[in-house]
């Protein structure tokens, strides 16, 4: 499956890479949906690090497509979670028990990577040391700058805030702390005058 090419953008917009094996005492891998493919690709480059690996995987709509193949990589710990939110307590516990020398690998949607990255940062790992690789959906987590609510899985611009109902346009300005892009009212100066929603990246 080909990887999505994000268009070049402003400095605060995250840029994702390709997972590569790095020296470390332990390896924590968190992925959702097609992000599993990035982990499988990583294994073809260095299968041995999975012996000290802990995989937390959220299949989403991919169901069983990847689960067994990930299990077959032989990670020291393997957990399949139904949603990211349900996995958070486990992720926090793993990070609080962890020591320096832990390598973190994140793969899949921007929303998953952003939130998991934030957990790792809270635990004391600098964001530049956390690897990310995008796979799958390009839907965004958007924070409404007005009500502070986060709308998940946004795929059009403009969109409606799922909390306060304002019409928001999609900015590329991104906050690691919130793991979300910024949404700003689009019709403040001309209420009701909205362009037709367009799919992101068209």
């Amino acid at each position: 499956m080909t990887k999505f090419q994000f268009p070049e953008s402003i400095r605060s917009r995250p840029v994702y890479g390709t997972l590569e094996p790095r020296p470390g005492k332990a390896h924590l891998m968190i992925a959702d949906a097609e992000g599993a493919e990035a982990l499988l690709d990583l294994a073809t480059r260095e299968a041995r690090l999975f012996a000290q690996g802990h995989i937390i995987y959220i299949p989403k709509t991919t169901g069983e497509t990847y689960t067994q193949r990930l299990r077959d990589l032989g990670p020291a710990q393997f957990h399949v979670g139904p949603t990211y939110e349900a996995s958070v307590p486990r992720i926090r516990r793993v990070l609080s028990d962890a020591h320096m020398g832990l390598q973190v690998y994140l793969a899949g949607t921007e929303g998953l990577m952003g939130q998991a990255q934030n957990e790792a940062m809270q635990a004391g790992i600098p964001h530049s040391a956390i690897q990310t690789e995008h796979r799958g959906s390009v839907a965004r987590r958007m924070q409404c700058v007005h009500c502070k609510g986060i709308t998940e899985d946004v795929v059009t611009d403009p969109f409606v805030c799922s909390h306060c109902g304002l019409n928001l346009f999609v900015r590329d300005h991104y906050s690691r702390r919130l793991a979300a892009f910024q949404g700003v009212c689009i019709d403040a100066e001309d209420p009701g005058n909205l362009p037709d929603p367009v799919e992101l990246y068209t």
Partner: protein
Amino acid sequence: MTIQFNTETFRDDYSFRNSDWAIKRFPFPFHEDSYMYSVNMEQHRGGPDGSVYEKRFDVDEHYVSEMQDRAIVLADDPLRCQSLPHMTLAGWDTLELIMVSKSEDYPDLFELHRDGNRWRWINKPMGIDHTFTFLDETTLPCGPLEYITRQAQGDYAVLDQRGDMLYMDAGMVTTQADWSLDFDIGMDFFEWHAPVPLAHEMGIFKRALKFLLNIQQGAPARRLNWTMTVNPLLDTSPENYHKWGIQKTSLTPENVGAKQHLRVELQTFYRLPRSNALLFPIRCYLIAFQDLVSIPKWGRRLHRVVRDLPDELATYKGFIANRPLMLDYLGRHDDGLPTSPGVWPDLDSEPPLQTQNDARSR
């Protein structure tokens, strides 16, 4: 020094007014008839007597009312003041800097009495007389940054310096030109400036960062930034944009002189001693067009700057739609005469506006 403090509002009925004194000392930012970005830094080491540059933290007639407006903003949205946990020491550095500077620069208005770490701070304009223990948060009603910036005009960003980079890790932001502290907190220098058009390609931010990383204790710096605001509204935050944005459409040829304001930020940069962080005060000054053009040179120059500004900048600064209206008004205050270099009013040497009649009678 006696200052008459105004009772005025920066919202609703907008009773804000600049006195003649405030108009003459306004920090006009344009030293020539056009504008482009530059790293226009200079030392913050005094200025002409009575100017906004003279004191470390300038106090003017708007002080008390601005602090009241800040209190309203914070009651409405406490997220406008945030401090990541490691920035408390920088907050104390900031409190010390502002208290020491103001008590030395305005002894009639502020007093600071220190006995070891037992400090007594008296703020006469705001009626505050408070004794507390320096470095002990439990003796203040709130964190040190919030405590002192509720008593100091302008916004304050506190930047942690780590690994040749600056991080916006704390701030009090209630008079901002359209950016969100809650969203930007934690970002690095290039990231929080990401939305600014053109400047990155020009290498402006790379040079500015190098300069800021090397600001040392005892050697603060300053620069000016500017934008436009309809109505003397201080809280032009993205958070409330869905409420105030509509005001931009209320300009008419009759009211543009009174409602359209030039908004100038006097930005200063201080190295903080104990935390090694960088304090970045952003002091906002507003002036209505009709007051600005009472200084002939400024009227001429502002017309030319606004007329020739690239579209991207006018868009980013939020006035592209109102530009034609602004130019109609400003054009009537530009007689085409040359203007002296520099920002000062030069009332002695710059002639008053020449009308058509003057031209014909020559």
